[in-house]
């Protein structure tokens, strides 16, 4: 037992030394946990922010002016006025997501209680912003019209006072979410590629053959890869979480960082085991790359970190449940946003551990055969 631990430790040190000799690789790891996180969380958001709006003002009244002025940051960029003839061209080119068309004599008709129509054109290919942005614009227009009317005549008060409060991320700033999810995604990508490729490299260079005549077991070889690569990735991830996400981007970290780290270790185990498992299914680095790539993209986009999990069809949800990503995303959200404690997240942790153990066990069974087959 002590011997096993020592072997795992020694082989792991070897992994770390190998990693150190590839400066390009190290640079890429740094990039993926610094600038990549920053750029994504600052560069895009799913919330309606800075959406581009144009307005066709055929009324030129105080009311139409008020509506145009009400389209405000941070949700929208200031509305640009365009001519009615330019609407199609501008939208075809994707210059604006929303175009508001205020018809002639809109103000007059409104005051006369004729409920005039106001047209809102939405580029529905911009899925993430189209729906929510349209809803916002509708309510902005509505509010403006109502305020305008209230100033000029009496309208009945609303029967209830609806208050919508957002918990855990009260301002709805999506870069909080994006930043943390980007860290999680990068952990997945790095773990699968580094660990899996480390095994393929040993096979391609023939060093695994040497290992297999030494008194070390496949279990030790695999575990060494897991801890060494996992350590590098986790250390960078946690550093990134504290320095880039917390200090630089100013995202508050609500829950216990220690609990998060504990979960991250279990997650790390499961994804590195997945990396090794994939490596046992491929004979060469190009094959491994092609196998890993779709899996990485699926884990990134369908884990619930980009779009909500509950909108996926049932069969797909079920498949995704068998991968570690959605469990860790739900775990990370619970701790980092909702400051959940162990009593709430233990289930996710347990599932992650089971998934990791299953991957590891299958990889272990395939290990020796996969290597003999390769020769």
């Amino acid at each position, binding site marked *: 037992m002590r011997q096993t631990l020592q072997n795992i430790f020694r082989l792991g040190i070897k992994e770390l030394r190998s990693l150190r000799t590839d400066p390009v690789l190290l640079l*890429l790891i740094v990039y993926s946990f610094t600038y990549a996180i920053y750029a994504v969380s600052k560069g895009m958001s799913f919330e309606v922010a800075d959406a581009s709006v144009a307005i066709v003002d055929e009324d030129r009244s105080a009311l139409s002016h008020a509506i145009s002025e009400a389209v405000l940051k941070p949700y929208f960029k200031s509305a640009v006025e365009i001519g009615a003839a330019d609407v199609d061209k501008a939208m075809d080119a994707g210059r604006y997501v929303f175009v508001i068309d205020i018809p002639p004599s809109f103000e007059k008709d409104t005051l006369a209680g004729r409920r005039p129509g106001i047209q809102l054109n939405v580029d529905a290919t911009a899925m993430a912003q189209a729906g929510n942005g349209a809803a916002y614009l509708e309510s902005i227009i509505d509010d403006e019209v109502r305020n305008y009317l209230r100033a000029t005549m009496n309208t009945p008060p609303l029967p209830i006072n609806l208050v919508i*409060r957002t918990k855990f991320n009260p301002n709805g700033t999506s870069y909080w979410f994006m930043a943390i999810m980007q860290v999680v995604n990068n952990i997945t990508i790095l773990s699968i590629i580094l660990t899996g490729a480390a095994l393929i490299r040993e096979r391609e260079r023939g060093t695994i053959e040497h290992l297999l005549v030494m008194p070390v077991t496949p279990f030790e070889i695999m575990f060494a890869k897991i801890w060494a690569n996992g350590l590098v990735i986790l250390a960078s991830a946690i550093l990134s979480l504290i320095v880039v996400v917390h200090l630089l981007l100013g995202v508050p970290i609500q829950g216990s960082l220690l609990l998060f780290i504990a979960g991250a270790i279990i997650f790390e185990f499961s994804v590195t085991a997945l990396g090794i498992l994939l490596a046992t299914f491929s004979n060469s*680095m190009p094959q491994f790359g092609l196998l890993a790539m779709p899996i990485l993209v699926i884990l990134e986009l369908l884990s619930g970190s980009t779009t909500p999990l509950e909108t996926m069809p049932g069969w797909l949800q079920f498949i995704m449940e068998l991968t570690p990503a959605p469990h860790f995303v739900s775990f990370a959200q619970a701790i980092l946003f909702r400051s959940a404690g162990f009593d709430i997240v233990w289930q996710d942790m347990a599932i992650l551990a089971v998934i990791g153990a299953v991957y590891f066990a299958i990889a272990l069974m395939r290990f020796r055969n996969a290597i003999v087959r390769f020769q």
Partner: protein
Amino acid sequence: MPAAEPTSPAPFAAEVSGLRHVYGKTVALDGFSLAVPAGRLCGLIGPDGVGKSTLLSLIAGVREIQTGEVRALDGDMRDPIHRSVSHRRIAYMPQGLGRNLYPTLSVFENLDFFGRLFGQGKAEREARIAELLKATGLDPFPDRPAGKLSGGMKQKLALCCALIHDPDLLILDEPTTGVDPLSRLQFWSLIARMRARQPGMSVIVATAYMEEADRFDWLAAMNAGRVIGTGTPGEIKARAGQATLEAAFIGLLPQELRASHQPVVVPPRVDDDGVPSIEARGLTRRFKDFTAVDHVSFSVGRGEIFGFIGSNGCGKTTTMKMMTGLLPASEGEALLFGKPLDARDMEVRRRVGYMSQSFSLYSELTVLQNLELHARLFRLPPDHAGERIAEVMQHFELDKIADERPEALPLGIKQRLQLAVAVLHRPEVLILDEPTSGVDPIARDVFWRYLIELSRKEGVTIFLSTHFMNEAARCDRISLMHAGRVLAVGTPAELVKASGETTLEGAFISYLEAASEEAGQREEEDASAGTVYPEPPPRRHRYDPLRFWAYARRETMELIRDPIRLAFALLGPIILMIAFGYGISFDVENLPYAVYDQDQSRESRELLESFSGSRYFSEHTPITSASALDQRLKRGELKLAVEVPPEFGRDLLRGRQPEVAVWLDGAMPFRSDTARGYIEGLALTYMADEIQRRTGRPANVTAADVETRFRYNQAFKSVYAIVPGVIMLMLVLIPAMMTAVAVVREKETGSIANFRSTPVTKVEFLLGKQAPYFLTACVSFVTLLLLAVLVFGLSIKGSFLVLVAGSLLYILATTGFGLLVSSFTNTQIAALFATVILSLIPSVNFSGLLVPVSSLSTAGRIFGLAFPAAWFQQISIGVFTKGLGIAELWPALLMLAFFFVLFTGLAAVALRKREA
């Protein structure tokens, strides 16, 4: 001096002066000058690591000159024009067991590739290949993949590849290392025939075989980066006053090196009648279509030195691998220490030391780190380990290079390191597969003295294979193998006697010839001097479609040979499109919610009914307390909670505007924003109904009517927006990665040497590598298009032609991006990782797939537009959903073409034709 006549050859094949070459801190050559005569067979001899390989690569023009002058074929090798002319006249065969071959290609295809690179026509190629294969005895296996050849056969094939274009200058770096004596004979007679046909041809060879060097026309003996003697073998022997070249070479060495050398003496072995340490009983190994080892039986006593000799590819390595448990036997039994071998038995492993034929230590760890790793894994006691490591390092002369990494070391020194590792843990049995291949004569003797000491003093059993007959003669017993069977076993003297020859080498050759005759494979000596082919027409140096085609064709064949890779490349995108087409949806539905109704009145139920009736929400069991509300949201079970205050109904009826609170989980802002919109909508409807209930007439809560028109996607379904995006995503990630890894793979496996030493230009090489992945991606595009139309029901509203043109340009750009990545990465891991990390972010986040480009921050927009994905996304979405054509999309097409030129151009600039 007048210019040389075209007919009279230059006096020197190569001339170097004042040459200095440094690798990091190691000086390989310093103030080195040498003139190698033309038209002759010239040898470089000297210990490992004296700069022979560096010198040869500089003369061949595959390495950048640091300081000094190199002239070859009467021209300056610093001059790029002369270099590019020379590439067609020089053939260079690098060190290593066929490292420049393509393992999945057959013997014939490898040769065919080289023939094409030199612009030979079909008939000429076939004739030359047939001749070369016959001359080297490879003719029975033209269809065997190069990767399945034995080490020596690979060497022969590599030589054939070098000889295919009738070079004027042939540069061979240890060409016969690991080649069996019979093949060596065939090898040199092939060279002799080539020279007879082409009398002007100069040959420069580095070799560790002194018997071979003895037959050369001219020799240069090197030591420590300097020349210590030149002349014919006879002159060198005469100068040193020695009868053999080996002795003469030792005589030329400086005093202190000479002093350490003594002849190897083998003391007689005392017979040990105990249990044999190694025993094979009818050991057989079959691969798919042939039997590599056929019922081999032998036994090796404790302390015996047992040698395996035999032709290349006869099954020696396979037998040894079975004895270590690396390969399971198909039939028969392997016994170690009298017990059947169990591959999982750690105790047995610790008693065995193994050295494989090809280098199998960690090239990314230093020499010392490799030794330390093995010491720990073999459980040497820590206090003893340091001492033991120092001991073997001294013994194998590794102490000066303790902190260097093996990848930079010459073959002979790598072999020493492998030996040092194999004996480090004092095993009782040593299994050594060609341990001395590529090692210089002096170091070989040092090593043999060590083995003999182990055997005689410590009773270590040694089982080794070798191609050196003087080494075989030192074994207690040898076993001669051929074609998977043992031909004879006995002491060297017995075998010589039985064959009726005088030397072991003679005995070996006669045994093998007899065996080949039996098998009906007798070779007829080729009497003709070979056909002389006309010089191929001079080819343009900038760009030659034939060389491009040679690379493209070869790369395509390698891809086709790897059906798994091809399948992954084509199936991956299909699976992804299905997963994303169904999986990525911005339609927020079925949000789990619960109510905390503290009023429980008719009015509160009316309010809550508007929620339960909506398809956007799905109701969970009601909340009973304020703390439960908190807990359930925290757990993520609920995404929103509706709280109705006590007295709600009464307040409502009295017109007091009671407050209804809705709590949203804001962890995922997109979802909470959407939910907010839904709730506001529901509330407005509820309020309108409520006013109507009280006043009895329809009420308008809103004063104006906003008509929202969802353009391009009236149904507002995610699939119409996502599927075109998936095409964009798949045509960047997979083609870029395949291309990048394919190029870097050549760097890692060593076949990049062919790019350096042949006339192929950078652009031909890069485009040739790119072509098959471009085609694969085109096929992928067609399948994705069909999937989009047939399965997801998308229709192409715009110009189909623009979509096709855009896709082709986009694939060119993304495979070009792969080429660019390959130019700054040196390992496949880094290349894989770099393409994923560098292309995933701009294509997923900043391309317009998830968020429109016009809504990105300025930095994000620049990031996105600086990558082809965002431009193709405009085309894909534009043609599929917006019905656009060339009038709107020409700028995007232009940008994609620009990216292709930019990426490929940058990759060509960054790629180095010569090694640093």
